[in-house]
């Protein structure tokens, strides 16, 4: 419907009135309405009574907050009312011709999530740990966020980085071996960075120097690294697992004072080094891309390589540079698997995380900060199952696990819409 309206407006003669027309899309209002309706349907179809126990602090915290016990049904309906109000607000705004502000969507999402959790945990004798929910989300988002940052850097320079999966897996493998042999998680991390950059070098060699279709190189590299690491895992690592495949992990470093803040403290400030690094990496990548000469050149090469070449920027060199940095950043994410999450490498242990990171890149519209938040969302989705399995969910767990992906689908369809990649993304540059 909106598409028709848009074309109708475009087709109309360019008179004074049409010049001031702003394009308003009813899509976001529609999606919010649909989600609210689904939510209400869920509450009506599977009513739940009882209390939900929200656990906000952990044992041993400086500030102890008692478990908040709330009646589930009223809370869930109250959240539904907030969602409805947010939807109504958006409908009114759209009718008046203004855009949907982001904070309304945020309020909507928060209300929806709280209501959903209240409903899911209703009547359960166990506590629903908010810290576990959010802290786990941050932890799980590590490979997605780093992977998405790597993807953003590559694509902004005009090289589609589908090899994120390969970079993550290769880095996890290398970090595992190095940290096992040297007993140092830091050396493992360094090795992961090198491994990610090495995969990138191969990507660059084929995509930049030999002009091979970047999607082909990316997909093939993913398969190649799965094969290579699985082969070496069964041929080499398994024979001598004690020395080669028992990694030294990063331990959590609580930041004094900050980690004592209720809820947020343990979620954000009691984490391993790799996660603090991630908090720094997101703004750093944003700054590097948008506020430095390096970033300007990189984006120029990604949007219009010919123009960049004309003003004297070495396109090939800039792209190699960007791809190597991208691989190194993605490599940091790969280190998560063997230096934070588990203390051993397993065959194909990334299990498609690179593709999710790729989705985060597109979801975040090729912007590092948005892509990182998209990664965080997927991290939350991955962690949800752990939390809900503790509480014991009323609907089949498979549907709970599906929810984040359905929400992503709706969000991509309704709120993000047509995403525009960097203009020269995927185009090899042939001089002349």
């Amino acid at each position, binding site marked *: 419907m909106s598409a028709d309206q848009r074309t109708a407006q475009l087709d109309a003669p360019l008179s004074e009135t049409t010049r001031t027309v702003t394009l308003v899309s009813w*899509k976001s209002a529609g999606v919010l309405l649909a989600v609210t309706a689904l939510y209400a349907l869920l509450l009506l179809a599977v009513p739940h009574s009882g209390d939900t126990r929200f656990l906000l602090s952990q044992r041993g915290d400086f500030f102890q907050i008692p478990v908040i016990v709330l009646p589930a049904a009223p809370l869930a309906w109250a959240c539904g009312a907030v969602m409805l109000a947010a939807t109504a607000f958006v409908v009114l705004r759209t009718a008046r011709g203004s855009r949907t502000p982001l904070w309304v969507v945020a309020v909507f999402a928060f209300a929806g999530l709280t209501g959903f959790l209240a409903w899911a945990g209703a009547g359960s004798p166990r506590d629903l740990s908010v810290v576990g929910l959010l802290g786990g989300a941050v932890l799980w988002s590590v490979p997605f966020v780093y992977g998405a940052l790597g993807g953003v850097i590559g694509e902004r320079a005009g090289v589609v980085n589908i090899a994120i999966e390969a970079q993550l897996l290769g880095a996890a493998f290398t970090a595992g071996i190095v940290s096992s042999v040297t007993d140092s998680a830091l050396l493992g991390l360094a090795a992961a960075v090198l491994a990610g950059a090495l995969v990138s070098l191969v990507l660059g060699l*084929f995509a930049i120097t030999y002009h091979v279709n970047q999607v082909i190189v990316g997909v*093939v590299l993913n398969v190649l690294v799965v094969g290579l690491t699985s*082969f070496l895992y069964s041929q080499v690592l398994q024979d001598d697992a004690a020395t080669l495949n028992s990694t030294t992990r990063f331990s959590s470093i609580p930041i004094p004072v900050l980690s004592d803040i209720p809820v947020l403290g343990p979620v954000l400030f009691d984490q391993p080094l790799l996660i603090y690094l991630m908090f720094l990496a997101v703004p750093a990548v944003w700054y590097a891309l948008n506020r430095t000469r390096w970033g300007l050149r990189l984006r120029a090469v990604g949007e219009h390589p010919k123009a960049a070449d004309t003003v004297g920027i070495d396109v090939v060199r800039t792209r190699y540079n960007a791809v190597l940095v991208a691989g190194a950043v993605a490599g940091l994410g790969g280190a998560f698997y063997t230096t934070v999450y588990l203390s051993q490498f397993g065959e194909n242990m990334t299990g498609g995380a690179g*593709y999710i990171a790729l989705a985060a890149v597109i979801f975040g519209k090729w912007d590092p900060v948005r892509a990182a938040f998209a990664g965080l969302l997927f991290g939350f989705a991955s962690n949800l199952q752990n939390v809900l399995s503790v509480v014991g969910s009323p609907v*089949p767990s498979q549907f709970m696990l*599906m929810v984040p*992906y359905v929400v*992503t689908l709706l969000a991509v*369809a309704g709120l993000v819409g047509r995403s525009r990649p960097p203009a020269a993304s995927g185009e090899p540059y042939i001089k002349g």
Partner: protein
Amino acid sequence: MNAPESSSEESSEQEAGRDPSTLDPGTAEELEQERAREATGPVGDAAPDTASRLAKALHQTMSSPWTVSVGAVVLAIVAGSIMIAFTDEEVKAASAYFFARPADTFVALGQAIGGAYAALFRGSVVNLQAPDLLTAIRPFTETLNYATPLIAAGLGVALAFRAGLFNIGGQGQMLVAAAAAGWVGFGVSGVPFPLHLLMALVAGIAAGALWAGLAGLLKARTGAHEVIVTIMLNYVAFYLISYLLATPGLLQAPGSSNPKTPPTAETAQLPPLIGDRFNLHWGFVLALLAVVFVWWLLSRSSAGFAFRAVGENPRAARVAGIDTGRATVSSMLVAGGLVGLAGASQVLGGVTTGFSSDIDAGIGFDAITVALLGGSNPWGVLAAGILFGAFKAGGSTMQASQGIPSDIVLVVQSLIVLFIAAPPLIRAIFRLPDPNRRRTSKKKTKATRARKEAAA
């Protein structure tokens, strides 16, 4: 023999014909002889003018795309050999005393590498150790059996590629197709053989088509990127199937608590193609029909023309009056149907004893590589699917008899695709001449020079 070679020979004839110093117009027969001689290798006693012609013909052969492909395969096999050499236990043991008895190391190397590739051949093409002919050709039928879903799903990905869409959703499409086909396959009873099979096939194909069509619809209507949508639909399908498999009365086998379906009914199974002794079933014929169908669709139908136009340049296609949204949706529908055929053939022919949520067996992702190796062309996909099927069949034999993890097959496969995609690299490694350099067209030489500058 094969099309590209003959066409390059034709062009050489034309070119040579234009140049009187190298070719006497009346000696076509002699030219044939030269070609035959050239095929067997350089001949020492050739006359000077023959030598120059010979050099030219040699140049021609060496710069043909097929030589590059052979080079790519050789290189990938060398890489695989290196991996085996470095990880083989006996080679390691022998190399410990390399300087005392170097021969041992080489013998061990030869045995490890030779054994591996012999097993790969034995498991995928023909088993020469077999007592009778039927057992001897069994490996090749296994290859075709493995190739069946790869071809079908590869066609689905390739078709989407041609319409400018990257279909990473093969996993989800295969899962829903398998579930639908399986449900009809064991849930419906009392229907006679060909009809029941047909119903199950149609159900599977339709489910795959709808699942992919959903992605196409979202893309066409809202502009949502198909990469995200298809990946998300993979997860949704996976959890949906997991739920159906874990719920009694839906897909779960009655009286069982495992997330596994009951076996497919006899009346819904794809019958064996060449006798009960072989696993190969009629699904392979369906895959072949699908190849012909996609070829027809892409190169002979107006819908296919619209797909390709949208894939090449959506803006130009829209200007030319093609409904791009409709092309997107319908190309995804067809692509999903093809992947659905792969899913259906898995449950109706491959795994008829009941399946669980790993029935897709990674084929949805393998299909991407198959489509890429096949150049998104139906005949190419057929060849690539059979090649990858051979690798799968041979890989398991290699793992069983030589203890070499079949993952090495993934490495060799992906290297082949990579190298084939980068002819300049292969030419540089094997010092093959560049076909572009021979052409005198100014534009071409300029482009070559520019490419070299860009590479430097």
